[in-house]
């Protein structure tokens, strides 16, 4: 029938990205990035339990440029998912649904995650000396 041939109107191809949808998909993407981090955590613990040689090879990877890049991505993902997660918990409690608050809290999450990431890396360099 002609009904089967009806085209589907465009959606993600033309819908305007807004703070609402962008932060939401970022929450999902950072969540997936953190799963990769969780796998790394478990392998790190396993390597430490296995002994100094296994540990130093994992440590060596973490110090490589690829490892540091992953760590940067992971720390930002952690802080973003954490801050936006708290924003989600506030929504789940029933607060913060006025559009003005949605936008203000959204930008706060972006600023806070960036600030926390910068602070973490800066502190890390300070500790290293």
């Amino acid at each position: 029938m002609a009904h089967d041939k009806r085209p589907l109107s465009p959606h993600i191809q033309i819908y305007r990205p807004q703070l609402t949808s962008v932060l939401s998909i970022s929450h999902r993407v950072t969540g997936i990035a953190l799963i990769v981090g969780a796998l790394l955590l478990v392998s790190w613990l396993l390597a430490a339990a296995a002994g100094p040689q296994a540990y130093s090879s994992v440590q060596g990877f973490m110090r490589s440029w690829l490892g540091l890049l992953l760590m940067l991505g992971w720390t930002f993902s952690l802080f973003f998912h954490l801050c936006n997660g708290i924003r989600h918990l506030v929504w789940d409690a029933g607060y913060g649904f006025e559009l003005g608050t949605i936008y203000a809290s959204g930008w706060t999450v972006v600023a806070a995650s960036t600030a926390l990431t910068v602070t973490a890396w800066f502190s890390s360099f300070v500790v290293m000396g």
Partner: protein
Amino acid sequence: MFIRSSNQLPSVTALKRFPVPRNFNVSTESRIERGKTWHAPADATRVKKFEIYRYDPDSGQNPRIDTYEVDLDTCGPMVLDALITIKNEIDPTLTFRRSCREGVCGSCSMNIDGTNWLACTRFISDTAEPATIYPLNHLRVIKDLVPDLTQLFAQYSLIEPWLQTTTPEPEKERLQSPEDRGKVDGFYECILCFCCTSGCPSHWWNGDRFLGPAVLLQSYRWLIDSRDEAAGDRLDDLEDPFRLYRCHTILNCTRTCPKQLNPGKAIAAIKKMIVQRTS
């Protein structure tokens, strides 16, 4: 940047659309092609371009984008006025739903410049150049800007949007205090334009099972109506991983509602009600 109300237009545009190829993962019958351009008469002074999604079911061809140049001196101030001018004076085959022309019937909902709104309450001066007009998202298109809303209305009837009581009818009216009547404010005003539902990514991917913001907002309208006695049954029907819990609080719905309603808030309240009855 800081949006306080859904009728506020964004001041900055970082991205007009998600960085996805235009016809990515689009089935062959849905691929959009280039259409024709209808030029304004030579003596027109204030000319505005409208790029409008066209689809003719009788032609056997794919959808296309036609560009219309409209002389704004011959046309009213709203996007709907432009569509009517195009239909009356330029191309009578342009097809769209409209009725009240004052933002209360919900007929002329469509995607204007990337977000969903009513054409009759969107000023032409608030649109981009060229203005891009598409039908509501992720719906089968019957013709041009007319989407098939059958499934959305079926989902609406699924929630049984009427007063359900077991207490026999009183002699006169069922009593309700002004405070209780106030609880329904912000929810009864929905005109079922479906701007919110068709703008919800979760409904795009799971629209066959997820009820969507408009229907859930109406569920909430009946849940908090103090005269209704079927809240338990309503909540039983809603508590489902897909019907309700596909909502991930994306909040595109609240951002786009042309009546400034808050479906996101209503859905969160439904989830709270469900938790409340477990402890």
